[in-house]
C-alpha cells in the first residue's frame, strides 16, 4: 500500500522548538491550503462563524498550538506535545474563583479514557462585560482552528465543537504565578 507515495520520500519540514526546560517539541511546518480547503473553509465560516470576526484568511504553516506556543512559525499537532509544553513552560490551570486576563489561554478539552484529549487552544484577547449588568464577564479569544484555517476573534464559547458532536469543556491556563 502507498508504494507510489513512498517514492516522493519524506517532505515534512520542522524547526527547532523547545520548552523552557529545553525539551524538543515535535512540530511540522504545514503546507498552504489548496483551493478545496479554502472553499470548505468558506462554508465552515457560514455554518459556524456568523458571529466570528475574521482576522486573517486561510493559510498554512501553523495551527492553534503553533499560534500560541511557536509564534505562528510551525504547527504542533500531537497532544503529547501540548501536555509537555503546559508542564514544562510553567503553566497552571486557573482556579474556579480566578478570572482569565488577556494573554491567558483557553484550552478546549474533551473527556477521554485516561488523559483528557485536546481539541483546541486559543489566546485570550480581552475580557468583555457580560450582556446583563453584573453578569459574568466573557473572554474573547483569537483562534486559528487548524493548520489550514484562517484566524478569527470570537466569544470563548462560540465554537463548533458541540455541533460537531463533542462533549467538551473550556479550561483557562496561565503562566502567571498563583
Amino acid at each position, binding site marked *: *500500500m502507498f508504494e507510489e507515495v513512498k517514492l*516522493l520520500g519524506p517532505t515534512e519540514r520542522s524547526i527547532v522548538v523547545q520548552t523552557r526546560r529545553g525539551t524538543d517539541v515535535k512540530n511540522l511546518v504545514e503546507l498552504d491550503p489548496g483551493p478545496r480547503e479554502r*472553499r*470548505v473553509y468558506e462554508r465552515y465560516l457560514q455554518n459556524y462563524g456568523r458571529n466570528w470576526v475574521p482576522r486573517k484568511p486561510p493559510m498554512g504553516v501553523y495551527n492553534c498550538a503553533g499560534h500560541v506556543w511557536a509564534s505562528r512559525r510551525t504547527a504542533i499537532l500531537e497532544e503529547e506535545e501540548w501536555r509537555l509544553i503546559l508542564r514544562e513552560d510553567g503553566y497552571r490551570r486557573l482556579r474556579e474563583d480566578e478570572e482569565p486576563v488577556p494573554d491567558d489561554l483557553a484550552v478546549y478539552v474533551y473527556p477521554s479514557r485516561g488523559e483528557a484529549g485536546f481539541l483546541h487552544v486559543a489566546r485570550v484577547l480581552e475580557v468583555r462585560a457580560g450582556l446583563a449588568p453584573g453578569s459574568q464577564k466573557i473572554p474573547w479569544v483569537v483562534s486559528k482552528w487548524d493548520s489550514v484555517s484562517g484566524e478569527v476573534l470570537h466569544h470563548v464559547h462560540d465554537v463548533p465543537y458541540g455541533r*460537531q458532536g463533542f462533549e467538551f469543556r473550556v479550561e483557562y491556563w496561565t503562566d502567571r504565578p498563583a
Partner: protein
Amino acid sequence: MSARVLQQLTSDDFAVSAGFLSTPGSLRRFFHQAKEVAAIKEALRQEAITDSTLRGFVSSVLRDLRCGERFPHQLAIAAIAVVLETRATDFADEFLHDLSRLGLAEMSMCIRVARECLKHRVNLAHNKTKVLRLPDDGFSRAWSPSEPQISFKCNAGQTSVSRVCEVV
C-alpha cells in the same frame, strides 16, 4: 451502495462536518462518531464492500496527490484509517502501518490519524482478548481483534499445549 459510502468521504459536506479539528486525536474521535464511518463499517460487515474495494478507492483518490501541495482527500484517508482500526485483516494492518510510516507534509494529518489508530489498535489487542470455550475438542481459543492469529491452550490443566494458527 459500495461506491456511495466511500464517495461521500470526498464530498465538501463531509469535509465541512469534520472541519478544521486541530489534533489527530480529536479527528480520530470525531470519525468514530461519524455516520459516514459507521456506514462503511456496516457495508464491510454486510460484505457489500470488501478490503479490495477500500484498496481500489484509496488508489483512486491518491491520483490527486501532488508533490508540494496539500493532498485534498486527507479526511477520506483518515476516515478509512479509523474504519480499519478495529478490523482484523492483513489489509488493515498493511494500510495502517504503511500510512503511519510516511513522512509527507502533503498528507500530514491523515498520517498522524493512522498513528493514533495504531496506538489504540495495540491497546485493543491488549485489552480485549477473549477466550472462546470449545467443549467438543477440549481447547479454548484466545482471540484479539487486531491479531490475525489464534492461540490454543489445553483445558485439561495437566498438560499445557500451545500452538498458533492463522485465521482463515
